Structures are given as C-alpha cells and as structure tokens.
C-alpha cells in the first residue's frame, strides 16, 4: 500500500508547508486519492465540508474511483453526485436526511453496495477498527500559517475523523473559512493535518435545533405537562438528553413556569447532554440549569453561550468546544433519560422514522434512546426504573428511562401508531439486513401522548405492554382496537395515567405556560445575546 509520504510527494510541487492553493484542490484530490480508498467527507446535520465535497465531485472519474465512502451524513447533493458519477463502490454512513429519496433510488438500482447504516458513535468506533479513512476531507473555521486548525463552536465530528485518519497513515485535508496569524485556540494540531486550503466561502452550518415557540400547539403544551409531572417529577430526573422537535421544545419552555410552579427547580433537569437549544434560554435564565454539554453548536447562540462559561464547555477564547463523540458517550452513559419524538410506533413499542422509498438513517438517536447495558454507576432515577422492570428474584440493576412523546395523529391524519412499521417494507425494497428501527420496544420505558402516559417499565408481560400502548394511542385504529377492560385495569394499576389522573386540568393546557411565545421572546430572555438566523426573524 502506498505510504502517506509517497502520496504527499505527488503534490509537493504546489504544496507550501501544509497549505495548498484553493484553485488546485481538485488537482490535489486527483493526485492523493487512490482507487479503492476509504474516503470520509466530513458533514453532520450541522457543519458540512461542502466546498471539499464539491471539489471531490469534480475529480476525474477515471482516476478517483472505486471509493468506499465512510461518513456521518449524505446530506449534500454532491455526496450523491459522486455516487451517480460512478466513483463509489461502497457506502457506510449514518444519516441521509434531505437526500434520503435519492439514496434509496440509487441503492435500488444497485449502483453501489451498502455496507451498513450506523449510529454516529458506531461509525466513529469503526473508524478505529475496520473503516479507518485513507482520506478525510474536513471543515474548520480557521487555520494558521503552520496548519493548526480552529474548529471553534462547531467542532462536532472533526476530532474523531482526524484522529483516526492521521494516526493510520491517512491524509487529512481541511477547508477553512479564514487563514490567520494567531488562532483563538488550537483544536487540531498541525501535525495531524496534511493539506489546508481556504474555501471560497464559509462552510455551511444548518440551524437544525431552533424551534420557533410561536408554532408550539396547546396539545404539545399538554404533553409537556404530562412529561414534567408524570415522568420528570415522578423519577426525579436530573441528567437527561432531549431529541429535536417541538414536543421537547415545549418541555424546555415549561421548566421555568409549570415545573417551577410544582416546586421542581433544582430537583429536575439540572445536567444536560444537549445542543445549545434556543428554547433552553428561559430555563437557564431562571437558574434551572447547571450544566450543558453539546454535540455541536447552534447558529446564533454563540454570544449567549460565550456569556455562560458556568453552564457550557468553553475554550479560553470563550467559544464552545463541541465534540460529538464525547457528547454521544455522555448521552449514552451519563444521562438517566432520553425523550424524543418519532414518526411511527408499533404494538411492541418499536419506533421508526423510516418510510418507504426514503433511507434516512439513524444519526445519534439510537445511542441516546437505548439502555446503556454497560452502565454500572447508580442514580435514584436509574435504580427506580430498574426495580420497576425487574422480574421477581432477578439480579438488581438499574435501567435508563427512554421515553417517546408523540401525538397520536400526524398532519393529514396519518396515525403515529401502526400494526406494522413501514421500516419492514423499506428493509425489503432496499435489501437492508434489518428493518431500520430507531428505538427498540424493549428499550422503551415510557410513552406520552395527548391521551396520557404509559409506564411500559411497569408492564411485566407482552399483553399488558400491548394494551398499555393501545391505551394511549387515542383514536388511531390501534387505539380504537384496545381491550377497554384491560386498559381500565392498567389505569387502576397506575400503568396508564390520564391527564386527570396526574391532576392536570385540560383547561390549564394553554400557551400561557410557554416561557417564551416567539423567537423575539427568546432574544429578550437572552438579554439580546441570542442572534437568530434571518429565517427565524419575523419582526
């Protein structure tokens, strides 16, 4: 196999130290990449090495070929262009979001072989075992003359990719927004980076975790009240992770109001593995939150985060260091609760966001939304969930609380609860090894809908579990086919709790509880430090 120095020798005639001119990037890729190389184009649902992806899509297909893509996301059209141009043989990835339909068509045509769809943490892990990239194309905010990199608030996947590549004879190529004399701090040392070039425009960052409070509905407020009273207060959850979406944004906005009115300040939601959600600002300002470690940053939150070194993990320069691999590990092992939303849930509680004809992948949710079987340290919430789930006489152990919060129907009257997940059809049509399940039913401990909360951790047989799920499935066909007596029995046993069982009056479920009712309110709550991106400014 060709060594790193042999590869770099091919571009020595235009490589100046570790820098190369931007207009020679395509030439550099043609020279550096060997047929059959494992190539990682950095990108996540937030930061994207978008210019390097464009350059890769302009390489010579006769030279740069038989590639094995090993990367977190296929989110940009260029990622798929490379495949369509016939330069890729094999693909291992995690998430495809906006390109999900195009990817499914390419796989159905048999253009490429799919290795596997991973979670982020699994793919990072395989970078250090059998999927180590030979070529990594990464994005940073700045480089200095020597080639040290500053990844700043959106550090995200860069350290994991670079470390695996650089220490195994691979080539690390970085696009940067700026080249400066002195970096605010060094995130990646120059000796791990082999080529640096200034991109013609700053790399893209998607404001993925911003939810406009103006769009939160009363039903979401009701479900947030159920979550806070029936789950957070019940188990005394202090360490947690929230998924993306309006359902969890509503919970964040009810902490300084509803949760505070229940005397829960300091008793719940103090320590987080979470992106810097703008909707968490009111809770931080109310003194609810002690610590937040972030997977990535969020556009517009930079100044607010910098002003809170007591809460967030900041460098000496005052900006966030978001290392996704560490935050994923934190979410998996150090949190007592994951709560998120999903598209479909079946009668065993398996949930999936897969729909036919779209291969969206997993991202990080399955690692957050899974019991950490390797966990050994105890906490009251973990012990309680474990005790509830355990069969009599079993070895005592704890359990992570995994909750899904969903409305029984989506828009256009699509039921969330189904007899059979679309994931089965997708697995068949795309030739996947397994139906792509986001959260497995045996990991799910709680289900929250507008109908109430189902404590699945308190069900000790499959029949109870199924009726507990049907019992909160509302007027969906799955809900209407419930055994009414069984469901009433589960309610008597405290396995199903309706809002009234929790002392929640439906009249009380209104938007007045939201600590911020608009993006403008969030800006106000932040003391003007939060600077929402233009698409969220409507005043």
């Amino acid at each position, binding site marked *: 196999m060709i060594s790193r120095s042999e590869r770099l020798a091919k571009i020595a005639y235009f490589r100046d130290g570790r820098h190369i001119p931007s207009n020679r990037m395509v030439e550099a890729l043609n020279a550096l990449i060997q047929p059959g190389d494992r190539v990682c184009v950095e990108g996540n649902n937030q930061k994207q090495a978008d210019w390097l992806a464009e350059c890769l899509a302009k390489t010579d297909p006769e030279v740069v070929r038989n590639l094995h893509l090993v990367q977190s996301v296929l989110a940009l059209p260029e990622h798929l262009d490379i495949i369509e141009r016939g330069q890729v043989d094999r693909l291992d990835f995690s998430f495809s979001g906006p390109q999900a339909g195009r990817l499914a068509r390419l796989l159905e045509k048999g253009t490429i072989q799919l290795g596997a769809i991973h979670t982020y943490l699994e793919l990072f892990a395989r970078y250090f075992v059998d999927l180590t990239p030979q070529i990594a194309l990464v994005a940073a905010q700045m480089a200095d003359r020597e080639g040290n990199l500053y990844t700043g608030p959106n550090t995200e996947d860069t350290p994991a990719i670079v470390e695996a590549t650089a220490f195994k004879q691979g080539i690390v190529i970085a696009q940067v927004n700026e080249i400066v004399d002195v970096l605010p701090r060094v995130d990646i040392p120059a000796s791990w980076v082999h080529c640096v070039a200034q991109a013609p425009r700053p790399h893209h960052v998607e404001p993925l975790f911003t939810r406009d409070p103006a769009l939160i509905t009363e039903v979401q407020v009701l479900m947030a009240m159920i979550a806070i009273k029936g789950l957070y207060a019940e188990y005394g959850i202090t360490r947690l992770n929230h998924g993306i979406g309006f359902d969890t944004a509503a919970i964040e906005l009810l902490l300084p109001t509803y949760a505070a009115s229940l005397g829960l300040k300091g008793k719940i939601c103090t320590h987080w593995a979470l992106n810097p959600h703008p909707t968490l600002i009111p809770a931080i300002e109310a003194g609810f939150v002690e610590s937040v470690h972030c997977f990535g940053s969020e556009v517009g939150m930079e100044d607010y985060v910098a002003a809170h070194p007591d809460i967030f993990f900041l460098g000496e320069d005052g900006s966030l260091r978001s290392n996704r691999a560490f935050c994923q590990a934190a979410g998996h092992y150090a949190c007592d609760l994951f709560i998120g939303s999903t598209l479909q849930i079946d009668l065993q509680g398996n949930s999936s966001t897969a729909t036919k004809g779209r291969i969206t992948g997993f991202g990080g949710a399955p690692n957050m939304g899974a019991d950490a079987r390797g966990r050994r340290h105890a906490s009251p919430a973990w012990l309680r969930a474990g005790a509830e789930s355990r069969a009599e006489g079993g070895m005592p152990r704890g359990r992570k609380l995994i909750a899904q919060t969903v409305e029984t129907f*989506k828009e256009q009257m699509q039921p969330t609860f189904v007899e059979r997940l679309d994931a089965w059809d997708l697995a068949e049509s795309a030739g996947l090894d397994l139906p792509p399940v986001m959260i497995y039913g045996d990991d799910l401990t709680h289900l929250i809908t507008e109908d109430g909360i189902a404590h699945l951790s308190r069900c000790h047989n499959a029949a109870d579990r199924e009726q507990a799920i049907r019992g909160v499935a509302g*007027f969906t066909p799955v809900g209407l086919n419930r055994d009414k007596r069984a469901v009433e029995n589960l309610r008597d046993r405290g396995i199903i709790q309706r809002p009234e069982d929790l002392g929640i009056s*439906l*009249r009380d479920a209104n938007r007045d509880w939201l600590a911020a009712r608009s993006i403008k309110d969030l800006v106000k709550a932040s003391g003007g430090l939060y600077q929402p991106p233009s698409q969220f400014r409507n005043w």
Partner: protein
Amino acid sequence: MEHLNFQLHSTPALQVKKLSADVLCGIVSSGNLEILVEPVSSDSTVSAETCLITIDTAAEGFSETWQAVLTQFAERHAVGGLSFTLNDVGATPAVVALRMAQAYEEWCAAMGAN
C-alpha cells in the same frame, strides 16, 4: 365542506345556575377549531341524557373518527342536555378532544359548577 350531526348518550349536565352561558372556545386558525357550548333549547324534544353535536368540517370522510372522538367525550363528561357546535378547519383528533374538554370545563366554570 362536510356537515355532520351527532346525538350521543351522556350523563345529564349539572346546571347550577339557571342562566344560559354561551362559551366560545378556541380561535379558528390553521389546524384549529372553534366550539360553541350552550344548553339544548328548552322547546327541544331531546332528553336530558342526550348531547347534541353539530360539526362543519373542512376535512371530508372522517365521520367515523369524529364518531369515536365524540362518543368517548360524551362518555367521559356529563354533557347531557348540552349542545356543541364545532367549526373545524382540519384539526387532528388530539386537538378536537382537547378543545372539547376545554370547552366543557369552561362551560362548567361559567355555570359555577366547579
């Protein structure tokens, strides 16, 4: 636009004060619903154990879902002798059930029943 009428069995509603308090709940807007609650008119022949519900809905073909939502509502609440008029612009059953229950609670509060 579909027009639906339901007559549902329910426990007679408490009528603490003998005054007709109309309650308008909710605002018609995207994904929302308007509900008017009032006592069944005194010259009507329906019994005190019947709840009348009239719906104008933008979404056609969901009468079975409406039936299920409203039947459960009439079972869970004492709404006999009351008339509900709904103006729906495509609300989900979750919104309908929540708004119905809110309308009932508002009505009870207005009547001084709770």
